């Protein structure tokens, strides 16, 4: 099993890289043209002071775009994967606390966000999706050498 994994990990890694990078890039790209909405989505979590939430609402889409691009081209794969594991983890915590506190919001992960009707919340699917992306990230941290990447070594 280990030998098989070692042999195919660059290809599996390529697929995971493209999925993770694609999702991150799409998330950022869909938000970067509607920054007022993005700021509002972060404020709706009621987790951060307003000024910090507003700042994050602008910066986060750009960060996602950069991380997405770097993963897609396979640059600094291990580090960007580590970074994406961290932010996915943070997202999971943010969504979980909104759920636990009885907030009724859309995660705003791909644009939109803010208040929704109580029966329109999709907390569990959103958490599961982000957890899946964490797993992809962990694989890339463990096997950072992937096919068709700009990384010329594992550093």
């Amino acid at each position, binding site marked *: 099993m280990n030998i098989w994994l*070692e042999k195919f990990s660059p290809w599996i890694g390529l697929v995971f890289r493209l999925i993770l990078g694609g999702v991150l890039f799409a998330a950022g790209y869909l938000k970067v043209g509607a920054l007022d909405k993005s700021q509002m989505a972060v404020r709706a979590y009621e987790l951060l002071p*307003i000024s910090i939430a507003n700042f994050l609402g*602008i910066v986060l889409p750009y960060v996602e*775009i950069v991380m997405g*691009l770097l993963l897609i081209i396979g640059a600094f794969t291990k580090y960007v994967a580590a970074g994406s594991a961290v932010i996915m983890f943070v997202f999971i915590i943010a969504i979980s606390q909104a759920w636990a506190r009885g907030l009724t919001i859309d995660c705003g992960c791909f644009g939109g966000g803010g*208040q929704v009707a109580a029966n329109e919340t999709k907390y569990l699917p959103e958490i599961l999706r982000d957890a899946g992306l964490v797993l992809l990230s962990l694989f890339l941290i463990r096997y950072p050498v992937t096919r068709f990447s700009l990384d010329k070594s594992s550093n």
Partner: protein
Amino acid sequence: MVKDNGAPKKDNFTRNLVVAVIVGVVLLMLVPTLLSKKSDNSAALPAIASVEDGYGIAFNADLANAPKIDIYEDFQCPYCAGFEGLTGAYLDELITKKEAKVVYHLMSFIGIESLSAANAAGCAADEGKFLEFHKLLYANQPKSENSGTWTNEYLKAAGQGVGVTSQKFSTCIDDLKYANWSKNIANEAGKKNVNSTPTIFVNGKKIDNAKDLVSLDAFKAVVAKG
């Protein structure tokens, strides 16, 4: 398998260069965006806009010992039209009798017609006809948002409807003179965590639309309670 025979620095030169370019380009877009979210101090403002009150159109701003009502609304928002229908006459009375400070924060997030309408209202404010113009637009709110009804010609005709016929008003509408004012309002509203319209604050406390706007008496009560 890790091929690590070359000098890593040279091997990764292309990668590092590409990444530097990507990060550079993104920073070139991000930094100006962050800076543009600071309110524009040099923006043209309608005469009765109050910088301290989120650039809103303020009535009786200097009144002491009176409740302060901040109204965040978008001209295209149907619930805002409902709010105006419910409380419009009462608010007019509070303003005329100088019994309250009322500040209108005209948001423009629904669409471009919101911006045109807000700009036109600012122009009408310069002619001393804000309240009348404001009332007229809400009374004639189109059935659906972003319908294309509120063109410059429509807004000028609306101005005529409240007795504003000056060239200055027409130019103000055509030039979208108060676009930056609208941006300032939006920025300040973001800092106050205004996420939907109508959002009403009485003496700095956000009211609960579901409870306090269920009837005019409910609204009067929350204003009286302060």
